Structure formats: structure tokens, C-alpha cells
């Protein structure tokens, strides 16, 4: 029976044991914290988990695992029986034991080679007496007095694997057989016809001798495996349901039998199962399966590839369903009744797809569970006092996202312990409790999952970040000056920035927040940070529910369509044909776009993919070859003879404008020129065929809404494929900066958005601070408690009127169509009302700061012949939040 050969069984055991261990760890930490006051149920839980590892490892003949878990079990037994108070001293060896068991499970085939004598010794010190050599064996034998044979065990394991359920039946000979005029054989044969009889026994421990035997009650307990549900099984063998108990494989292998709730009259006479009796001597409580199932919903293991296959099939079904619906829509007189059937299929399909998607969801608790241990270990190492509180463990996320979240979260928690939380002395000095707190919280919001990590530590000092950034030469001083404190704090996501004064082995190895950020963004997530010096920091992760579906922009080049994941997309820039000569330049061999004072390397998608360039003539509705060779200055690159009128037409035509997608790859950004921009679509990512895997420009393929296949572009792959060089453009940029500093005045061009509120007053704000602009109708405004809201894409956006915070005229009310300017800092929750968008221009900011001096105003200038007031949206927002008594949560 102890064969390492049966790998699938063994793998099952490994997976289950790991689950046990991961549940043990947090429980041990609770034990340590609560000491003698710990809930008995928690102690029992730990005990049971270790016990089943011991039992099963014995079954597989894994001596090392068995011995170590046995010794741990002995210690736990003392704790359970109240003979030992669980202190840190006791917990350390237990936790080390857990680590060691994990290590053994890591590579089960070499588990025997792992040394564990030290762990055993430390545990034995707690036990107070070195156990005798034969102690191990003795216990095991006694725990299995009339245990199942190896053959039975194999039967059990096989049956369970085939999806059968295990049940204990308790048959009262009088009530269930004699009274019903059945012989035991009748019952057993009924049972055999619906399942597998594994074991049965009469409980004769209390059975009287011949003289009293006829009237004494006698019960037969049966262990069987069947695919039937409990109620059906009870019906099939004609037993009351209360006498049928479902049990798990572990419980059976552990020889744990259920306690039966017997009617009073029978209770006295009926003997309990022998095993139960022995355990009650240890005050073992509540190991009945009933109790078990009350805690957790039943689960089974399913292979992930099977789930993926199901997901594919569901997708296929959705498509067929769509075709079916279309076919019906085209038919004038659908066949009687068929329509309702198709409607039903429609409903079922949608629901099926939804549920199949759900099978990949797992609670975040599965990764939260490991952090208490992480925090505990670091706390000890650093001599700090930190409490980790978690909530929202049951929030569910796609398995693959969850897996890729584990490392970044660990890093963030470690960072928190290492840097954010002060030492107890330091905390007392500033009047905080000596113990710091980290809150780890998961919650749903707007179709996304948020995970926040908050601490009550020292907060992030933006001055220190700035200093660090300067030291590492990541940004210039003038760059930093232009930044708000919040923007400076965000610089901790820059690669190569570690702010730890001294490098510890816990965090601060120079790779840090940038890696976290990249990892989070890889799964389509977003990370933001909010800090208050001296009070604490909150890091917020926003994650999509599932990885398989990503929002993407569909773009066109030369008649081909491609999907670009939104994660990579920073912004879209349209350069008008007439602006091309002034905004696009050549630096070395590369074309660059001048964008808000920075140079952005440009590349044409058509060139990257080696497509014949075409431009779309909207008049003729046809594609024509595009003769522009160079991105910059297309006019002078015409080699072919073209008539003047055609050139003119081409240059001024709409399609001669450049649609530039600004894409980011890590810290780099570049512009990708595409011919057409289509809609945003939620696409399902499918892997690339091996025939095109070497094309680094693609991240995968997808089926779009119209059923056609499109390739998904890989922003990073394109970058490395085109070998775009940032050094040249950066050198150029630096050179220009030097020129500027020589001038002593920062005459930098900045893109400004000009708009009006009242018809005769013009305002300006930096375009870089604008997230987007929306048009809306006056009647869409909703009033709530003196505040105004607009609902856009299921989100409420609060409206901010300039006249409330600045001494300016209010807008006229009769206008129907309005604009809403959404500043980036408001995260799409707040927008500034504008009656008219005037223009967006590149200008040198040369502001007069004396004319208008209100907070929220940067200064004023005469632009296009009008006095224009330049505002700082951030300040206005803060004023707005203050007036609402809200803390600005960006």
C-alpha cells in the first residue's frame, strides 16, 4: 500500500496537505495571540489538519512527514487538553514544523531526504520528555485497532476519485430491519445495487450475552461509496436520513466515525463506536461531518485545462446562439413556438457562460492567509509591533490574476512593515500606540476589485523622494519644481528608486515599487498611492475581475484591424496635416513628435508590419497607396510625379492627419501611427499559434464582435522589434533643456485648453491635467442635497461650477449642450462645467500673477486677444472637497 508509484493519489495528497498547512498557519498565529483564551474550535481545527496529514502520510509510507507531523500533533494535543499554554515559545517550533512539512511537500519524492531532526528536537523540548523510540509506532497501531485494510483504503481512494461520495450508515437491527420485516441481507443487497459496500460492522462492545440478546438493541454500521445524494441513498436503502452521514475520505482514512444522534431510549443501550469512545477520553470534540459541512461549502478539484475547455465551449455556444437569434430575426413568420425556445436557449447560454467564468474565481483570502505569518516574522526580526487586520477575504478574483498578485502584495506588505511602520519608541514619541496596524482590505467597486493596504505609519515624505530622485539623476530639479507633492510621491514607482536609508534584506533592494507597478499593470490593474505625512499611507490596487477579457482599442492600418490593450494606451494624439511640419521632426534616423515639450519617438504601424501603406479616400470609399515615405515633412518626400492638386488634396484631407497612439512600455513611451481608430471593445485573449509565435509584435489573437479574427498588438514587442531608440531623442531633449536653463527662463511650450463658462470670460488649464472632456445635456443634471451630478457610464460625476470658488460670472442657463472637463486628479469623479470649449493651443506660459490672485488661479495672460484666467484644477478640487467636508481621495 505504501507505493510512491501511484502518482495521482500522491499528488492529491500533496495538494490537500498543502491546503491543510496553509490553513494551519493563520490558526497558529491566532493561538499565539490569544493564548489560553483561544477558541477551542480553532485548536481543534489545527489538530485535525495536522492529524490528517499524519494519517495520510502514514498511508503513503512517507516516514519523514509522518514522524514530524506526529510530533507536532503531540504538542497540539497538550495545548488542546489545556496542559500547555500556547506562547510564542511554543509556536515557533510549530511554525518551523509547518515550514518543514511544506518543504517536504515541495518535492514529495525527496521528502525522505529532508532533515527534520532539529524540528523534532525542539518540539520534544516542549513535550518535556523525549518520546521513546517505539512510541511512534505504538500510537499508530492503536489508532487503527480494527482499521481498514489496505485494500479497503484503495477502494475508498479510487471511489472518491471517481466522484463517488462516502457515507456511514447506521442501521438499527430492531427498528430498521425486524420492524420492517427485512433481513440484514435484504438491506445489504439493496445497498450493493446502488453503491459499493466498503466496510460494515456490528457494534457488539455492549452487546449482552445469550440470555438477554433477543431484546437488546443492536446496530450495524456500514461504510459505503455511491454516486447517490444523501437523501436518495436513504430512500434506496429505506433508512431515515438521520442515519446516513456523508463523510470525507480523510475522516474515513482517519478512522473517524460519526456520532449518531439517537433517540433517548436507544441511547443508553446502544454502544458508541469504539473509536469514538477512545477519543472522548481525549475530550476530542465535534468531529462529526455535520459540523464540518457547516463551515465550508463542498468543493471538488477540477483541472484548470478542463475549465478552460469549458470556457471555450461556452464561447462557442454564445456564438451559435447569436447566429440562431439572427436567423430568427430574419424570418418573417417563425415556426410556432420555436421563438420561445430560442429565447430560452438565449437565457440559458448567457447564464451558463457567466457561471463557467465564475469557476475560475477564487477568494482573495487564499493569498491574504499567508500575510499574518509574513508580518509576524518581519516584526520579530525588526523588533517592531505590527498588527495585520484583513477584511474582504471572500471577494473573488480570477485565478490567474490572484496568482500574479501574490508577489506584489507580499512586497507591499513587507515594505509597509519595514519602512512605513515606525519602531515602538518612535511611535510613542509622536503619541501613537506602540503597535502599528496594517489594514489589508478587498472590496468590489464599479465592476472592479479593489485591494487596499493601509498603515498608520509615518507616511511618505515627498521631500525625501525628491531628494532621492535628484541623487539618482532620474529627473531634473526644474522637473520636480513643477510637480505637486502628490506627483512627487508617485515617483516612487520610478525604476531604480529605493528610499530606504539603509538597505535591509526585507525590502529596499532597488527593485521595488516599479516592479510592483509593472506586475499589477500586466494583469490590467492600476496602482495608486495616497499618503499623509506622519499619519499613514494607503496603497490602492484596482484590478479587473478577470484576465481573459481585456478592454482594447481597435485600430486599423492598411485595411487590417488590430486590437491594442487599453493598459498600454496613454493617450491619442491627432496631428493635423497642416501641423505635421511643425510638430514632427527628425532626430537622427527617427521621427519624433513634440508633445507638451517632450519628444516622443514615432513609428508607423504599417512600416513595422511591412504593410503596403494606403490611405483611405472617403470620397471614393477606396484605399489608395500612400506615397508619403517619411513621417516628418511628407511634402518633400514625394518621389513619384504627382499633380499639384492631388498633393494638396492629400495633405489637407482628413485622412492625411496622423492618428498617433501614445503607448507606454515600462517607463518608456512612444507614438504608434495608425490609419484608423475604431471603437473600444472588450476582447477575449486567445493564445498565438505556434506558426506566428516568433512575431514579437503580437500578444495574441482575438475574435471581435463581428466574428472576425484580429491580432492583438504587443506594445513592448513592437518597441523591441523596431529597435526604437530613446537615447537619441532623450539626448536631444537634454540638450534643449540645457539651452533653456542657459536662458534662465523656462520658456517651454505647454498645451493649454481654453474654455468659457460665462460667454465673455475665457479660462485656461494645462491639457496634461485633463483626463477627458464629455458633452452633456442640461436636463441630464441631477440634484442631490445641493450638489449636482451627472451619470456617465454608470458612474456618478459630481459637477463643479467655477463661479462657486472663483469671483467669476456664472454661466447662462438656457444653453442646452454643455461640456464637462474631467481633471485627471479627480479620477473621473468630478468635472468642471464649461459652456464652450474654445481651443487647445501650444503656448509659452508667461503669466501675470497680479491681476487675479484667488486660490485656484495660477495667473492670467492675454491669449488670442482675450484676457484668459489660468486655473489649477487640483486646488479647485481641494477647495470643493473641503467645502463638502471630504478628504480628497485620489
Amino acid at each position, binding site marked *: 500500500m505504501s507505493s510512491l508509484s501511484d502518482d495521482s493519489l500522491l499528488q492529491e495528497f500533496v495538494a490537500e496537505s498543502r491546503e491543510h498547512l496553509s490553513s494551519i498557519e493563520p490558526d497558529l498565529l491566532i493561538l499565539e495571540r490569544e493564548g489560553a483564551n483561544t477558541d477551542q474550535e480553532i485548536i481543534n481545527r489545527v489538530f485535525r489538519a495536522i492529524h490528517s496529514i499524519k494519517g495520510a502520510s502514514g498511508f503513503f509510507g512517507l516516514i519523514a512527514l509522518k514522524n514530524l507531523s506526529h510530533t507536532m500533533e503531540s504538542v497540539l494535543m497538550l495545548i488542546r487538553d489545556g496542559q500547555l499554554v500556547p506562547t510564542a515559545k511554543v509556536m515557533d517550533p510549530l511554525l518551523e514544523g509547518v515550514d518543514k512539512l511544506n518543504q517536504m511537500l515541495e518535492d514529495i519524492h525527496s521528502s525522505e531526504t529532508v532533515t527534520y531532526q532539529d524540528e523534532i528536537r525542539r518540539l520534544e523540548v516542549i513535550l518535556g520528555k523525549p518520546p521513546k523510540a517505539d512510541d511512534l509506532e505504538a500510537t499508530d497501531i492503536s489508532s487503527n485497532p480494527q482499521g481498514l485494510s489496505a485494500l479497503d483504503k484503495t477502494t475508498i481512494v479510487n471511489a472518491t476519485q471517481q466522484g463517488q461520495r462516502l457515507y456511514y450508515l447506521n442501521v438499527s437491527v430492531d427498528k430498521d430491519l425486524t420492524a420492517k420485516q427485512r433481513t440484514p441481507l435484504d438491506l445489504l443487497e439493496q445497498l450493493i445495487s446502488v453503491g459499493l459496500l466498503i466496510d460494515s460492522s456490528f457494534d457488539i462492545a455492549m452487546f449482552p450475552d445469550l440470555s438477554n440478546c433477543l431484546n437488546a438493541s443492536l446496530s450495524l454500521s456500514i461504510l459505503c461509496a455511491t454516486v447517490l445524494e444523501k437523501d436518495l441513498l436513504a430512500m434506496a436503502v429505506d433508512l431515515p436520513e438521520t442515519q446516513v452521514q456523508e463523510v470525507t475520505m480523510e475522516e474515513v482514512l482517519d478512522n473517524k466515525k460519526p456520532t449518531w444522534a439517537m433517540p433517548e431510549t436507544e441511547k443508553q443501550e446502544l454502544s458508541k463506536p469504539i473509536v469514538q469512545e477512545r477519543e472522548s477520553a481525549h475530550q476530542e470534540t465535534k468531529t462529526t461531518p455535520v459540523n464540518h459541512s457547516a463551515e465550508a461549502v463542498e468543493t471538488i478539484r477540477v483541472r484548470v485545462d478542463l475549465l478552460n475547455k469549458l470556457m*471555450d465551449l461556452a464561447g462557442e455556444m454564445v456564438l451559435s446562439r447569436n447566429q440562431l437569434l439572427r436567423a430568427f430575426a430574419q424570418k418573417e413568420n417563425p415556426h410556432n413556438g420555436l421563438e420561445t425556445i430560442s429565447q430560452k436557449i438565449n437565457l440559458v447560454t448567457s447564464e451558463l457562460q457567466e457561471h463557467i467564468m465564475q469557476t475560475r474565481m477564487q477568494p482573495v483570502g487564499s493569498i491574504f492567509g499567508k500575510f499574518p505569518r509574513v508580518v509576524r516574522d518581519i516584526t520579530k526580526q525588526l523588533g517592531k509591533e505590527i498588527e495585520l487586520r484583513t477584511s474582504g477575504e471572500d471577494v473573488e478574483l480570477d485565478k490567474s490574476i490572484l496568482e500574479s498578485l501574490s508577489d506584489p502584495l507580499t512586497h507591499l506588505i513587507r515594505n509597509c512593515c519595514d519602512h512605513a511602520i515606525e519602531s515602538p519608541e518612535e511611535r510613542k514619541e509622536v503619541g501613537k500606540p506602540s503597535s502599528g496596524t496594517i489594514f489589508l482590505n478587498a472590496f468590489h467597486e464599479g465592476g472592479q476589485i479593489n485591494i487596499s493596504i493601509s498603515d498608520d505609519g509615518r507616511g511618505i515624505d515627498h521631500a525625501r523622494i525628491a531628494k532621492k530622485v535628484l541623487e539618482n539623476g532620474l529627473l531634473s530639479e526644474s522637473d520636480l519644481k513643477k510637480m505637486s507633492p502628490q506627483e512627487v510621491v508617485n515617483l516612487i514607482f520610478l525604476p531604480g528608486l529605493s528610499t530606504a536609508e539603509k538597505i535591509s534584506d526585507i525590502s529596499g533592494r532597488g527593485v521595488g515599487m516599479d516592479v510592483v507597478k509593472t506586475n499589477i499593470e500586466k494583469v490590467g490593474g492600476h496602482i495608486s498611492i495616497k499618503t499623509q505625512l506622519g499619519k499613514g499611507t494607503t496603497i490602492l490596487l484596482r484590478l479587473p475581475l478577470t484576465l481573459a477579457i481585456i478592454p482594447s482599442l481597435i485600430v486599423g492600418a492598411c485595411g*487590417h484591424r488590430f486590437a491594442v490593450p487599453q493598459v498600454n494606451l496613454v493617450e491619442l494624439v491627432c496631428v493635423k496635416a497642416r501641423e505635421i511640419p511643425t510638430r514632427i521632426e527628425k532626430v537622427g534616423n527617427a521621427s519624433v513628435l513634440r508633445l507638451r515639450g517632450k519628444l516622443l519617438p514615432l513609428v508607423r504601424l504599417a512600416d513595422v*508590419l511591412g504593410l503596403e501603406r494606403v490611405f483611405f479616400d472617403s470620397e471614393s470609399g477606396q484605399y489608395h497607396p500612400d506615397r508619403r515615405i517619411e513621417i516628418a515633412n511628407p511634402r518633400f518626400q514625394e518621389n513619384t510625379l504627382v499633380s499639384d492638386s492631388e498633393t494638396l488634396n492629400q495633405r489637407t484631407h482628413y485622412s492625411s492627419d496622423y492618428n498617433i497612439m501614445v503607448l507606454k512600455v515600462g517607463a518608456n513611451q512612444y507614438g504608434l501611427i495608425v490609419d484608423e481608430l475604431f471603437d473600444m471593445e472588450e476582447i477575449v485573449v486567445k493564445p498565438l*499559434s*505556434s*506558426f*506566428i509565435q516568433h512575431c514579437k509584435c503580437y500578444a495574441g*489573437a482575438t475574435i471581435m464582435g463581428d466574428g472576425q*479574427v484580429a*491580432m492583438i498588438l504587443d506594445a513592448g514587442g513592437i518597441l523591441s522589434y523596431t529597435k526604437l531608440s530613446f537615447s537619441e531623442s532623450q539626448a536631444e531633449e537634454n540638450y534643449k533643456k540645457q539651452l533653456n536653463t542657459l536662458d534662465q527662463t523656462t520658456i517651454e511650450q505647454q498645451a493649454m485648453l481654453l474654455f468659457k463658462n460665462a460667454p465673455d470670460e475665457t479660462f485656461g488649464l494645462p491639457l496634461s491635467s485633463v483626463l477627458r472632456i464629455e458633452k452633456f445635456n442640461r436636463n441630464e443634471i441631477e440634484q442631490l442635497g445641493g450638489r449636482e451630478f451627472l451619470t456617465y457610464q454608470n458612474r456618478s460625476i459630481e459637477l463643479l461650477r467655477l463661479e462657486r470658488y472663483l469671483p467669476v460670472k456664472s454661466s447662462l442657463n438656457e444653453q442646452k449642450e454643455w461640456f464637462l472637463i474631467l481633471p485627471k486628479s479627480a479620477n473621473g469623479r468630478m468635472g468642471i462645467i464649461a459652456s464652450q470649449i474654445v481651443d487647445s493651443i501650444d503656448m509659452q506660459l508667461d503669466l501675470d500673477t497680479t491681476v487675479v490672485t484667488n486660490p485656484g488661479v495660477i495667473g492670467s495672460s492675454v491669449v488670442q486677444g482675450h484676457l484668459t484666467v489660468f486655473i489649477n484644477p487640483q486646488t479647485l478640487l481641494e477647495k470643493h472637497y473641503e467645502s463638502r467636508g471630504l478628504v480628497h481621495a485620489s
Partner: protein
Amino acid sequence: MPAKSFVSFHLGDQLFGIDICQVREINRHLHLTPVPLAPNYVRGLVNLRGQIITVLDLKERLGLGQTEMSDISHNIILKTDSEQGISKPDKDSSSIISEKVGFWVDAIGNVISLDTTEIDPPPANMGEVDGKYLFGVVKLENTLMSILSIAKILNGKVDE
């Protein structure tokens, strides 16, 4: 006698055959999405009921030039190994279709049943086709049919 059925098809004026067990379906009129930068024998991707199939131009793959789209050109979709129920490799060619692939061919012929003993080993060259892509050759009434080795055709990517 071990009999086997083969789907026959034309590439130019040559007749080829594929074991019918390896064919999932034959279709046409699918919207093909070309893949820029892919090898030229990759004709593009199609959506077959929610599955993305890579369509290879078999003629191009065998070095016979490009297949023109025509009224009679067809797409032969192969079964993957798992669809064929193959779990472990056998020495025959068939255990390598790990992904969904289709062959674009000039025209589809009949299904031909043969006695496998009639299959002769391939010559070094069969017309312009390198013998390494062939599993064998069969004499039919008035022509020869070359039976393709799917393994060589799909896995020969490396030795390009």
C-alpha cells in the same frame, strides 16, 4: 487487409491525400484575417465557431507557389491530437497536431479507400515536392496520389 480512407485534394495538377481520421472538417467561405510578418505559408487566421484556426497555404508550404483563392479552393481543417484521441506519440506521423490548423488547397477530390499495403515509400522527390513531406505514394487507376506526412509539414518549421 488493413484498409484506410484518405481525403484527396489537388495542389496544382498533383493529387495528394490525407488520412481521413486526421480531418475534422472541410469548408470554405471563411473570412481570413492575414497576419503581417508571419511566414508566407501562413495564409491567415479564421474564426471557426469561436475557435481560432491557423490556415496554412499547403502549396506554399510544399514549395509549389501560392494557392489562388478560387471557387473550388477549400480549407481542410485538421483534428488536433486530442480530438483524434491520441494521447501518446506513436511512430506514425500523426501525433503532433497540437493546435488548430487548416490547409488551404486548390480543390477537393474524392475520399479514396485503400489497402495500406498498396502504399509505397515516397521517392526522394515527387514532382517538385520534397519527399520528406510525404508519407508514401499510391498508384491509382490513372494517376499517383502522394500521401502527406502531417508531422513533417507542421513541425518542419525549425529547419527552414
